[in-house]
């Protein structure tokens, strides 16, 4: 889901970078308010975890590959604003040092994987948990798995739209329109990356809850959420 440089025209590139600036600023303000020693050290590990799981490319039957991101897991454990910062850091390192995802495309990639993914995943998870009668490990695992699955697919759809609108607004950039981009991106993420994201997110969240006594410090760490969440 890492859009390389050269695929997005200037209009999309600049708009999405402009959208990200206030989001990063707000995330920093939330960090100033909520950050503690435990949450920042946990976030440093989870940012590295996200970086690592994105290196695991999974084969997609159409001959391409896809990977999970881990952003919903960070959002559930530490709050969605922590996920914005943790995943952004992983994406910046990937873009500058490993050429995975473009440098000018960082606005788009961060919006998809560091904002849309964790927020959709987090609110799907917390919405399902409100519907569940009991706060058990099993229920948390199910809700987290569904959250991860929906989060990564909405993010993939956003990336597909960003790719696919180029032929209409910026000729000379991504040559494929929405009719190609949306089915291809959704195929890879509904079928491959989504189930991986769901399994890992569900497993970790359920496991931590099942070992509640041992992991109470992680489970009770202050979440980076804004006022009303």
């Amino acid at each position, binding site marked *: 889901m890492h859009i*390389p440089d050269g695929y997005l025209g200037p209009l999309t590139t600049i708009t999405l970078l402009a959208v990200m600036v206030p989001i990063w600023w707000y995330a920093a303000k939330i960090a100033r308010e909520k950050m503690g020693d435990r949450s920042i050290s946990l976030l440093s590990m989870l940012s590295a975890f996200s970086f690592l799981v994105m290196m695991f490319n999974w084969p997609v039957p159409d001959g391409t590959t896809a990977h999970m991101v881990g952003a919903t897991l960070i959002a559930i454990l530490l709050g969605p604003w922590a996920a914005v910062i943790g995943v952004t850091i992983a994406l910046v390192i990937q873009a500058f040092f*490993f050429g995975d995802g473009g440098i000018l495309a960082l606005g788009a990639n961060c919006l998809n994987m560091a904002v849309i993914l964790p927020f959709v995943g987090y609110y799907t998870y917390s919405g399902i948990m409100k519907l569940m009668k009991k706060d058990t490990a099993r229920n948390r695992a199910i809700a987290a798995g569904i959250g991860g699955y929906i989060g990564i697919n909405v993010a993939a759809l956003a990336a597909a739209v960003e790719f696919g609108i180029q032929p209409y607004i910026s000729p000379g950039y991504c040559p494929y329109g929405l009719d190609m981009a949306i089915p291809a991106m959704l195929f890879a993420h509904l079928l491959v990356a989504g189930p991986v994201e769901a399994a890992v997110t569900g497993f970790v969240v359920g496991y931590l809850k099942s070992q509640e006594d041992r992991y109470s410090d992680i489970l009770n760490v202050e979440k980076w959420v804004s006022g009303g969440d």
Partner: protein
Amino acid sequence: MGKRMSKAWIVMTALIIMAPIGILATWNYGDAWGEWGEVQVGDNETWEPQQYGGAPLPDYNVEGWDSPLMASIGYWLSAIIGVSMCIFITLGVGKAVELWRKEESSGNDGEK
């Protein structure tokens, strides 16, 4: 937290050791959709995305390490570098936020 963190390190180390699976499992596959260096657009026509600058370890590998074994070593190297950088930069951001917090509170004291 100390013990919890050491367990997190075990998971992280295991993932680093397994990282080459991430490239070997898709060895004969193409790139992820939309991440190609060159695209066939017509019968004889190709389209290439414009690049801006290069990365030191493109595609998580050392340039020229093309065999599965060397690419795996490149992948390990990249995983170790990437993990270290994520941890240091996140902790650095945390330090910056802490300084910002202190500056803010000392500023407020000044106003009182």
